[in-house]
Structures are given as C-alpha cells and as structure tokens.
C-alpha cells in the first residue's frame, strides 16, 4: 500500500501539481483573482467618486474631459482559502485510503499554489487534522497529518459537522468535501448552509463496488459498521435488486442536490487510481470557478 509520505506518492503529487498549474493557469504568487475590488495593480473598473474615497484614486484625465469625478478601481489579489472536509467516519472503512490520497493530492496542489489550506475530519463531530497552513513547507506535515488520521465517531452527522465548521468563523473559500455521502442527516440543508456562508463547494464521492452491488444472499445478520446496530434479514434476488435501486436513488439524490446548487460533483471509485481521478477533475473543471 502506498503511503502518503512515500517518495513515489509525492512524485505523483508533483506531477499533478504541474498539471494543475498548466490547467488553472495561475502564477506561483497567491494571485487568485477574486470578485472583491481592492488595492491591486490591475485596473478593474471606474466608479463615481464619493465622499471619503481616496483622492489618489481620482482619474484626473477623465475629470478634465468630462468635468466629472470618477475613481479607478483595481482588482484585489489575495490568497485562496481551501478547506478539505474529509469523511473519517467508520463508514469510510475500505474507502478511507482513497479519500486520504485524494485529500493529499488536493492539499498538495493547494499548498504548492501558496493557497491557505485547512483540513478537517468529518464524523459525528468535526475534528481538525491540519490547522490553517500556508506555503510549501507545510506539505509534509499535511501529508503526515492525513496519514495518521484515524476513523472515529459513531455516525456521520454531516449537519453537525458543518455547523461546527462554520462556528469557527472561517473566511469564505473553497470547500472540498470528500465522503461517500451515505449520511443519515439532511445533506441538502448542510450544503445550503455552506453556500449561504459564501463558500465555493466541490463534492467528491468516494464509493466502492460493494456499496452499489449487493452480493449477499440468504439469511444474514447486517451490522451497521458505525452504530453497531444489527438486523437479521433474508436477502434474495428481489431484495438485492431493491437495495441496488435504493443505492442508485440515493446517489442520484446527492448528485441532483449538487447540480441544483451549482456545486461541482465528481465520483471516485476505489478501484480507480487517485491520480486519474484528480486528472479528470482538473481537466473537466468544476473544482475552481
């Protein structure tokens, strides 16, 4: 199994970072354009002078021609806050490896672009894995933190985690949620909450084939991996088909919720190498607006 701190893994991340630079077309400085106007060097627009505006911003050439005071506006250039919310509940058993790899790759790209990165673990409550970090010197600690993170909690309370996340008064940024999205709470409500707080969202659904296809037959005792709750059931072809349909419906619901809110969404089967998934995300967009 490839560790997150293995040179080979890091080499792969480097390649992905180069690809990201090419695709996203940014510079090495934290020069991501935002919608905010500020004191940058790039002209953005004109606006009427109002009392209190900086005299230095008045375009006197315009005033000479039009006898009307206008001031120049410049684009504000600032670093991007990227929040990785990784599902570390027990339901990610078997899938957490890919989730860590994906989180590592995205975190690597973010830190390499001098963006500010924060990593949280989701379960029945929110647990910080990496405090807000900036700069390439935080790459290895980030990977080590992801490597050492353990699954925890008794449930995946998505709503509670989002509430806790927002209570930390975070600046708005790009929230990347890596989860299987098999959560019992109100997913849509949580997404809405994040959007309301002006976050850009991207959902990455990690799933395995056993989640989608039921190969169990006959009398079985099903035990919830998170809560330990048990149930004796008899699974025949009809029940298996119904279960497959229910999973499909659930996934469609998650996908539909993202689509309706303009949230980027991608799926990550555990059978596919993480670099291919990242390449696919970078090439097809949706991660960065």
């Amino acid at each position, binding site marked *: 199994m490839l560790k997150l701190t293995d040179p080979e893994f890091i080499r792969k991340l480097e390649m992905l970072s180069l690809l990201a630079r090419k695709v996203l077309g940014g510079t090495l400085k934290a020069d991501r354009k935002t919608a905010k106007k500020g004191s940058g060097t790039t002209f953005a627009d004109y606006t009427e002078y109002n009392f209190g505006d900086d005299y230095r911003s008045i375009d006197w050439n315009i005033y000479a021609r039009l006898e009307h005071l206008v001031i120049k506006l410049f684009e504000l250039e600032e670093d991007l806050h990227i929040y990785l919310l990784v599902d570390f509940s027990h339901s990610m058993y078997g899938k957490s490896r890919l989730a860590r790899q994906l989180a590592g790759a995205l975190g690597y790209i973010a830190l390499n672009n001098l963006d500010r990165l924060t990593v949280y673990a989701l379960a029945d409550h929110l647990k910080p894995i990496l405090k807000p970090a900036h700069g390439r010197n935080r790459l290895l600690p980030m990977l080590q933190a992801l490597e050492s993170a353990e699954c925890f909690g008794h449930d995946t309370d998505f709503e509670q985690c989002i509430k806790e996340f927002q209570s930390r008064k975070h600046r708005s940024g790009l929230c990347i949620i890596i989860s299987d999205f098999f959560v019992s709470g109100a997913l849509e409500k949580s997404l809405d909450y994040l959007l309301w707080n002006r976050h850009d969202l991207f959902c990455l659904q990690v799933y395995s084939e056993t989640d989608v296809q039921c190969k169990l037959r006959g009398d*079985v005792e099903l035990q919830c991996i998170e809560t330990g709750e048990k149930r004796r059931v008899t699974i025949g072809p009809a029940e298996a088909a119904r*279960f497959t349909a229910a999973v499909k419906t659930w996934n469609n619901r998650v996908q539909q919720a993202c689509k309706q809110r303009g949230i980027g969404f991608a799926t990550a089967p555990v059978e596919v190498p993480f670099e291919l998934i990242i390449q696919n995300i970078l090439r097809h967009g949706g991660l960065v607006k």
Partner: protein
Amino acid sequence: MTFLNPAALWWLFLLLPLAALYLLKVRPERHQTTLLFLWEKVFEKKHSAAVFKRLRNWLSLLLLAIAYTAVVLALAKPCFYQINKHRKLIIIIDSSASMNTLQNGKTLFDRARTKAAAIIKNLLPSQQAVLAAVSTDLRIITGASSNQHYLLKALEQLRPTECAMNPDALSFLAKHRDFCPGSRAILLTDGCFRGASKLKAVEMIRLGKPKQNAGIVGFDIIRLQSGKNNEAGIFISCASTYPDNSEVDLVLAHGKIENIVKVFPLKLKKGINKPIILKIENAAAGKWFAILDKAESFALDNVTCAVLREPQPVKTAISASTSIYEMLVNAYRHSKIMELTDKTPEIVICEGNVPENIAAEKYIIFKPENNSIFWKGAGRPQSPQHAVVEKPAHQLVKFCRLDEAKFEEIQELTPPANSVIVASTANGQPLIYKTARNGKTAYVFNFDPMRGDFFLQVDFPVLLGAAVMDLCGKTPQLPAVFKTGSLLPEAVAATFNGGSMLLPNRKIVKYTPDKHLVLPGFYTLMKNGQRLQFAAALLSVPDTLPPRPEFKSTAQPLESGIPVSFILLATALVLVTLEEILYNRRKVG
C-alpha cells in the same frame, strides 16, 4: 402398535444434539455494512412476513425433527397388529390355468405375483418364507429363507401352467405341515377349484373378480363300429356363466384348426349344459379340434383337441388243445381288439409251456407244466382254491370278480423274482402273475380254465382281453383326450418308458412315466418304431365356471402393500426436500 425392532428407538436421543447442531448451523452469517439505513428502507415493506421469518428456523427444525423421527420409526419397524415374528410363511401361488385370466390388462397370475412380492418385501428380518406353486401338484420353489432378494428372484421366474388346479395337492400340504411346523400357509388364488372350504389349514387370499366365461369342459371322439362308412361318435360338454342364453358357434375341425368340418350354433345356458352327442360319417382318424367361437378374457377353455384312433387289433396266435381260445379271439375280432394270425404274432396264447414253433415276445400261458423260463417246479397240483386278489386296482383284474370263482389244477411253482403277483391262493401259491425273462413278457395263469367251468364265466374273456391289451400296451380305456396335468395310464407308460415324447410345442423330450401332460395340444410317444398319438386339453369345470362371489378370502391380516417403513422413509425424504428448499431460500435467497 408395536415395534418389531424397538432398539432402534434409542436413536431418538440423538435428536437433541442434532437440533443444537442445526441451530448453530442455521445461525445467520454476520456482515458489516455502512448502508444499514438503506437496508431498513428495503425491508420496511415486508413487515407482514416478519413473524413467519422469525419462525422459519423453528419450522425447518420441526420438519427435520419429524423427518429424523420418521427414519428412526422406519428402522424400528412399526407393526399395527399382533404378529409372531418368528412364524414362517408358506406363500403358495395358484399357477393353474384359470390364473391366466386377463383382468384390467394383467393376468391374475401377475397379480398374485405382485401380491406375493409385497408380502415378501414386508417380511421381518428374522422371518422366513417358503415359496411354492400349485396346479396339478405342489411345487416347492424355494426352501425357507429370509433372503428377500432370493425369494423375489425365484418369484420372478414363476410362470403359470395350463393345467387345472388339483386341490389334493393342497390337502397334502394341510395334512403334512410337519415339514414346516408353526408356519402359516397363504394361498394366492382366484378360487377356481373345488374343495376350497375344506382347506382349513390354508389361508386363502382371493384375487380378481368373477368374470363371465364359457368353455368346453368335456370332449371325446371314438370310432363307432356301426358298420357305416367310417362313422365317429362325438361328445361335447360346454359350461357357461353368462346369465342369459348366449348364442355361440361350436366349430369342429380336423387335422388343423383351420380345416373346419362342421359348425353348430349353440345356445348356452348358465351352468353345465346338456352334452352334445353326434355322429359324423367319413370321420378320418387323427387330430380333431372343438372350438367355442367366443372372445373372452379366459380363452384357454374355448379350444380343445382330441385324437380319433383307428383300432389296431393285436395279432394273436394260439397253441392249445382246446378251441375255446380261438372262439374268444374271434369274438374280439369284431371290436378290432384281437385277430388270429399264423405269421409273426404279437402275442401267443398257449397252454402248458412256451411253444417252440411260434416265435413271439409276449405270452399268455394257462395251466403251466414242467419248468419254463417263466417258472420253476410245476408238476405238483394243488387242490381247488379260491383266488386272493393281491392287486385289486391292477389293469388285469379291476373289472373281474375273481374271489368268487374256484380254480382247479393249480400247480406248485416258483415264479421269477421280478414277477408281479396279481392274484394268489390262500396258501400263497401264485395264481396270476406277470413276469419277464430274456426280453420276453408273459402273463401266467396258474390254473386250468376248462376245469370248474371257469371258461363259462363272464370273467374269463374279460381277463383274457385285459391281459392281451396290457401286454401290448393297448389299453382299451385310452381316452381321446387327457386332461392337462394328468399322467398317462400305467400300461402306456410302461410300454413307452425311456422313449421320446414330442410335445405340443414341437420339443422332443425323454419320456418317463412321471411326466405330466402340462401343455394342451397333441403329443406323440415314440419307442422302438412304435408311435402313439394322444391329446391333452384343459377340460376343467372349476376353471371354466369361476367361483361364486361368496368365495371370500380367509387369510388373517398380513403385512402387504407398501411397507410402513417405506412410507416413513418416503415421508422423511419429502420433509428433508421441503426443508432443503426452505434452507436454500434462506441461504441462497
């Protein structure tokens, strides 16, 4: 209900550990899932079947427990009536001709075999059975054995005969039960024989139902000495069970069954009909058939056959001082029993001693004198004495009353050792005996028939005629047809003993006097150039007239049909299959 092998019930104690093992086995496998909330949605619609699901394991366990109990009970061999398990069974199958009757596509004999097989299959391990078949006689097919395979194999090889049932054979069994003491004799029969009610020691199981039948029960044909052109007399007796006067054609054929000579329309009444007696002119000697033209389930009695013989007079020479013998031979000439001849006689009637001038192989010698190859020491006459008949049933004397006559000129003599003394005197002197020496056979009459006026008595010609016929093997009582299963008369048997016999099925076998005529049809006996053709047919009233419906089975309860153990095992198999389906549903879905 009792158990014949109660020790097997101990196996029931294994039921509890087996149940525990079963419950461990059916415990569902545990699987961890992250999607229990989705499974809840899948199964929330099926709450109605939840009770059944909860009880399903217990239901399966119950099925298996019942199946296991059934197997144990099968091993314990339950029995629903009191039985002496050590008692032997003598299974006797009626293999008489009437068992060939077809009923619902199967012969009664096949039914008997099926029933016997069922009885054999229900034998207890320690119980022995003897398999026997009865028709003209009782044949023990197997000795006492508990080997079911051996008994069933022997049963499979049994075939029905075409002979009538001889109830005396069963009477013999009833009287001589000592060879199998404490046994039960079970007769599987259709009841077509007389004297069934007398067979108290034999339990009878009746097979089949009485069916309507008609057949020929008597047939005879003889050459009439009426002086007309080859006239033959025919006697036919028919019997029927049809309630109304049923019309049927009676066909007479000669030579082959296709060569129809005459057809009589008959109206058959219920029971034995009045015999038909008729004369036919220009009736050729040889094979004759009488056919009742009616299609029936029992057809063996619809065809019968007989042989019309041309009398062959015995060529007789006489060497005696008196003419009384010549007069007697001439008297027999009209009935073509004897005729006088001078050349190559078959038999010589002489007085005193064997004549040297006439060569023959058979002699009738009266008034013996001196020594001869047929006696020694004649020459001391005895006083007149009455005869003491030693063998009253002998062919020679059975129609005579010799004990009333007084014989004179009895000589004191010693017959050869192999002689058959038919009659003697009170003091032990042989009076009439049959003897054979050096290939010659003789009847020696140790008296003078001319003395005491014996020659005037009616017994004298009868005695002489019987002696001639007996010596020549031409018994006058040889019928045109014998009943199947019967033996040939002693005189014929003695003449052809060691010869060959052509059977109706064209096979040639060596003839011995104990050979029964088991097949209907024509036989030919051959020996030393002599040939004798005769016929055999069923001609049995009990076989033609089935028993009345009142004839009931007398057998005590007997384990037969499908064995209880087999039913229990089959039940167990069904239950296990059912449980397997349930188990498969649970485990495979």
